[in-house]
């Protein structure tokens, strides 16, 4: 084996170890967080009983922090799982898949989601594809600041690949962040709940499939995220 191959193998091994480690630690922290959350809710109950409502303000803040931390850990687990578990390829009807995803999300009444035209049927890993669509759609929903939010999902077909688009009329993203947002832990901070992991998860899945992702956006008018998925067997 050449030195380069050896190095590559070592690197691959270390990467897997790192994913496993992130996975393990996140799970342990998640369990502890469950305990903390329960204890906190009991303390809160006691406080309300003993001293009236005034004093629970800080406990509510703690609760919110714990919730955010839990979301964070969940995202780290999702991120680390992408590389770790092997892909299972099945035939997926994206029309059904996407409407199922939309049903599963909490969509406020002032936001409508439209699927333009027919989405394709393609081969891929159902969980990974769900992560891509789910994260992009929920971002479009969560960061929408308009009275009548509109999110449009579309697709264009080329010879070898599909280009999907998810367009919103939300607050838009300044030019200088168009690449940065795909980095791990980057959040533009508009949203208290955002962990900065959603787009990195999407990017990592697409990297695995050899797909690309980019954004076109105008501040205060909205963003369109484009990504490509190859028509060839997505292994």
């Amino acid at each position, binding site marked *: 084996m050449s030195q380069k191959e050896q190095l590559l193998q070592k690197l691959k091994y270390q990467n897997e170890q790192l994913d496993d480690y992130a*996975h393990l630690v996140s*799970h*342990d922290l*998640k*369990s502890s*967080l*469950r*305990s903390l*959350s*329960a*204890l906190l*809710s*009991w303390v809160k109950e006691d406080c309300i009983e003993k001293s009236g409502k005034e004093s629970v303000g800080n406990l509510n803040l703690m609760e919110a922090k*714990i*919730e955010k931390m*839990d979301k964070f850990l969940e995202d780290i*687990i999702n991120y680390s*799982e992408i590389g770790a*578990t092997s892909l299972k390829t099945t035939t997926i009807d994206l029309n059904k898949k996407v409407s199922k995803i939309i049903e599963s999300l909490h969509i406020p009444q002032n936001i409508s989601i439209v699927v333009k035209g027919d989405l394709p049927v393609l081969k891929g890993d159902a*969980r990974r594809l769900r992560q891509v669509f789910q994260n992009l759609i929920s971002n479009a929903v969560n960061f929408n600041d308009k009275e009548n939010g509109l999110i449009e999902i579309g697709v264009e077909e080329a010879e070898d690949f599909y280009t999907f688009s998810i367009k919103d009329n939300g607050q838009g993203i300044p030019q200088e962040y168009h690449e940065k947002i795909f980095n791990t832990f980057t959040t533009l901070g508009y949203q208290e709940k955002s962990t900065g992991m959603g787009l990195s998860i999407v990017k990592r899945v697409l990297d695995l499939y050899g797909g690309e992702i980019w954004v076109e956006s105008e501040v205060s008018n909205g963003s369109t995220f484009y990504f490509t998925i190859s028509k060839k067997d997505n292994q």
Partner: protein
Amino acid sequence: MRKSLNILLVEDDMIEIMKFNRTISKLAYLHNIIEAKNGEEALEILYNSESLPDLILLDLNMPKINGLEFLSIIRNNAHLKYIPTVILTSSSDHKDVTECHQLGIAGYLVKPLKFSDYSESIKTVLDYWCFNEFVEA
């Protein structure tokens, strides 16, 4: 309909046990709970008791014999293999879910973050099992 279940709770975390007992104490029916701190202790209880529990609630992440190992042991034991077992865990790990279903489980519950949600799901599971017919053992 049954009003009281014999439940074997296999869980190593003290606060998780507190959560469970606190939930149970507020239910309309009085269930009989046997606690085991890990798979090894749970097996000892199963091997040595005259009657089997109606239901096992099983954590996955435990010292000594972990949840998956325990499940695999009882599923391969002619006497114990039919005890309905519900997994109670904080892991929705795809591999864990698949392995548990392959070994044979009666449910897989991912513990919600909030205690009130947790209580609600435990209540739902136990209510469901109250309506079941059991093999007398």
